[in-house]
């Protein structure tokens, strides 16, 4: 029973990771940028979710507005920050992104205050019993929402013509243009979807914790990187599975290895082990 409980807890944590990481994997897949500031968008999504819910009283509306507006901000970040440095060595975008992330966290602190915000009346708090286990409605929504969204995305990326165009844009944008692919549009769409998913994750995490803080993105900023690498970098399906796997590993790890290593160290120990066996990640193509 404990086993099943831990497994389900791990999967819930994993679905949070998945929602955050998949946007990152989209961005990485397309631009080869380790987009750390993605975690800043995640936090921003959380803030929007809490503020709008508290103002307007509708969580659904808040979720929608947060996803759309953060999606647009993500597009702006691409246009203003990344597009001009796409052809530079990867470190450049990485450091720019980290700088942006630090600045975002500070802006959140200055604008929204250092203590964080909570929902006045957090929705979806009902307990739902599944097979003698108790879950919050929010957790269930989170889990199935993530599976549904990401599963769909994986299918689109894998099978559709747009998915192929997306992959072509990844490897050689110039040639992709030559065959009529609007690579700028592909990138905008990509940033929009990725950032909107991050915002959704932010809203859901804000709800699960009933708290958004300026530093809410600091763990996702690096954990999500680990997940996309584990998943094989740029592979949606791989990211989904890696995220869930990591959630489960952490769940069991905290209980059975907690005495020796902390949660992050457990996650990264797992990551390193996997990479030593499969240097291209779980689902990466062999180099």
């Amino acid at each position, binding site marked *: 029973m404990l086993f099943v409980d831990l497994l389900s807890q791990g999967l819930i944590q994993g679905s949070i990771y998945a929602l955050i990481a998949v946007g990152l994997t989209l961005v990485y897949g397309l631009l080869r940028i*380790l987009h750390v500031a993605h975690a800043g968008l995640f936090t921003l999504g959380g803030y929007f979710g809490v503020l709008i819910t508290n103002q307007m009283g509708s969580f659904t509306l808040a979720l929608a507005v947060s996803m759309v507006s953060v999606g647009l901000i993500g597009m702006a970040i691409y246009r203003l920050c990344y597009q001009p440095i796409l052809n530079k060595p990867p470190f450049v975008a990485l*450091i720019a992104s980290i700088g942006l992330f630090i600045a975002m966290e500070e802006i959140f602190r*200055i604008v929204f205050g250092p203590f964080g915000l909570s929902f006045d009346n957090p929705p979806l708090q009902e307990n739902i019993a599944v097979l003698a286990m108790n879950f919050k409605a929010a957790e269930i929504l989170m889990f199935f929402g993530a599976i549904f969204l990401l599963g769909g995305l994986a299918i689109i990326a894998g099978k559709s013509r747009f998915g192929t165009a997306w992959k072509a844009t990844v490897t050689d944008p110039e040639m992709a243009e030559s065959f009529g692919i609007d690579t700028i549009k592909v990138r905008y769409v990509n940033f929009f979807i990725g950032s909107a998913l991050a915002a959704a994750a932010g809203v859901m995490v804000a709800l699960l914790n009933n708290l958004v803080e300026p530093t809410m993105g600091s763990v996702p900023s*690096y954990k999500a990187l680990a997940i996309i*690498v584990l998943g094989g970098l740029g592979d949606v399906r791989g990211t989904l599975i890696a995220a869930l796997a990591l959630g489960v590993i952490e769940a069991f790890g905290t209980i059975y290895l907690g005495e020796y290593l902390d949660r992050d160290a457990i996650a990264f120990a797992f990551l*390193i082990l996997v990479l030593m066996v499969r240097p291209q990640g779980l689902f990466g193509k062999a180099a």
Partner: protein
Amino acid sequence: MFGLGAYEITLLTTVGIAVTVALSLNLITGFCGQISLGHAAFYGIGAYCAALMTKAGYPFAFAVVSGAVLSTVFGLIVGLASLRVRDDFLAITTMGAGFLFLGVVGQWDFVGGEMGIAGIPDIGLGKTAFMALTLLIAGLTIIYSLYLKRSWLGFVFDAVAADEDTARVLGLNVSRYKLVAFAMGTALAGVAGAFYAHHIRFIDPDSFGFIESISILSMVVIGGIGSVWGVVFAAIVLSLLPQWFQFIDDYKLLVYGGLLFVVMRFSPGGIAEIAQKLWSRFRPEKSSKMEGVQ
């Protein structure tokens, strides 16, 4: 001495350590092209090892050497990982190594766990001499880096950084060269860590976390990856920045983050690139001799 107050001496010591550790990463990432997001761990290993040594009564020199050696041992282990994974995979692997370091040190009572190590002895040189020693080490590191760039070892590093597969086909033992880069870089980081521990005289795992790794990497990238003077300059500026910015207290980190972003956005080659541009503007007739970025 030299009319420096204790405050200036403290800052100069900080600068000396920052220059050393930034150049140590520059050897690995700048020269040899192996990105590391966990460099602070090696800095930390040097610091912990040296602190334990002097606390146990060993002389400082011995502590520095053992810090460097221990750091190198772990550097070689991570170097071995670099033979297996590349590029962004390597970046994240090294980041993971950094978190493993934190996890282990934080859990290990022998090294103080989360409490860290306090009461690291004064090595008895006095602040001024300690500063001078730190600056001497930094100076030697600069000279060594400059020399390395000119040597055939640096030449091979260039090739490995550009394209490992091609380097192999040119008969270069890429694995061994990468390990050498990791060994040299982590040894120097260990030395810098030993000095850090005896400068601040209190260390805890947080001092060597992801943020520290990132700020070291920022020095390298902002300076201009692979350049020596650019990195030195960036290390000086970035390590002093928090103190200079005291007057804008609340906006300090905002400005810092913004600065990282703006430099990368508008001068991706870092300070070295800016300097090179200025140089060629003022000396248009001569081809610029400044070392620069590719």
